[in-house]
């Protein structure tokens, strides 16, 4: 063990070879970025970053509106041009970005509605057979949630709307995947990513 540590600190890659695999211990080149700090050091990089993020928050409303416009444009393209790999991909990408970004921008309920749309697009065996209304309801819901965001009492309505959409989406996915039980298990299974970090 001591010899291995010596090798690594000398910059050598150590390879343990087994019949079917190799374990490669490489020196840690990022060790140079580890520094000792004294206990009295009050520097808190996470707090600093949170403050910087707060400084950006003035722009979040504008960013959110832009994301919504992109979603609307992608949906309009499907309605006007029709469904093809490009229009489908753009709708998914727009919804997926809202799913990932909206909570950071202060619109977690819009993220939930976009997530529901992403699930339909990812898990419907044939997207061309997904009812147009189901897609339109999701797109409209995202818009409504963002548009009415500032109004008093809208959060509970938006929450109810997102919940309802997710219920309808899951019900639809359960029906269309009834012959794919393994797939269904994946769809309805919980995320394994730690939440609330």
């Amino acid at each position, binding site marked *: 063990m001591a010899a291995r540590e010596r090798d690594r600190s000398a910059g050598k890659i150590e390879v343990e070879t*087994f*019949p*079917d*695999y*190799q*374990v*490669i*211990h*490489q020196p*840690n*080149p*990022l*060790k*140079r*970025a*580890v*520094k*000792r*700090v*004294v*206990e009295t*050091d009050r*520097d808190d*990089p*996470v707090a*600093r*970053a*949170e*403050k*910087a*993020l707060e*400084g*950006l928050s003035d722009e979040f409303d504008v*960013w959110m509106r*832009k*994301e919504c416009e992109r979603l609307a444009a992608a949906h309009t393209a499907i309605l006007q041009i029709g469904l093809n790999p490009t229009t489908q991909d753009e709708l*998914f*990408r727009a919804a*997926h*970005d809202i*799913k*990932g*970004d*909206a*909570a*950071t*921008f202060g619109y*977690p309920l819009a*993220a939930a509605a976009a*997530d529901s749309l*992403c699930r339909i697009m990812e898990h419907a065996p044939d997207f061309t057979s997904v009812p147009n209304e189901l897609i339109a309801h999701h797109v409209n819901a995202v818009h409504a949630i963002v548009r009415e965001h500032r109004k008093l009492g809208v959060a509970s309505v938006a929450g109810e709307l997102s919940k309802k959409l997710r219920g309808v989406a899951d019900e639809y996915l359960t029906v269309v995947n009834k012959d794919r039980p393994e797939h269904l298990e*994946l*769809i309805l*299974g*919980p*995320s*394994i*990513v730690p939440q609330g*970090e």
Partner: protein
Amino acid sequence: MFGIDFNKLRFLVCDDNAHMRRILRTLLHSFGAREAYEAEDGATALEMYVHYVPDIMILDWSMPIFDGLELAQMIRQPDGTGNPYTPIIMLTGHSDKRRVMMARDAGVTEFLAKPISAKALYQRIVNVVVSPRPFIKTKSYFGPDRRRNTTTGYIGPERRAGGKAEIIQQAALLDKARSTS
């Protein structure tokens, strides 16, 4: 006690969403990083990875041309150009179990589900800097050890024995990269 000197780390961020890139840039600079390069698609990121030799890559999954998963597979080639050991943090809106497993099996070092937080990103970076895992090379996998828990006996499927594990289509992906560059 220890801390991270972000000033000594070079980052490459790849996300097709300009807003998310701005957020990542803000967070990294606030941590103290000076060198944070940005790419908006997988092909550009691959070029920048070879050119800038980043210490840490932060990849989005869903991107045009080729996605973050394909990019991770291209980087994790033991004989490829660049540093195949580069830590990869996958930052994505995908969080279902299947996707997490796919990312892990593509050689991703850390998985970070959106929405992003300063604390979670910082923690992932600390993990890859302070506690790098050894790399495993089998017929079908090259990447950080997927068995994080070393204190108890492993009881999952034996992927290391034989070639029954997932097949990574690296050659095809490389062709794709070349044809798009």
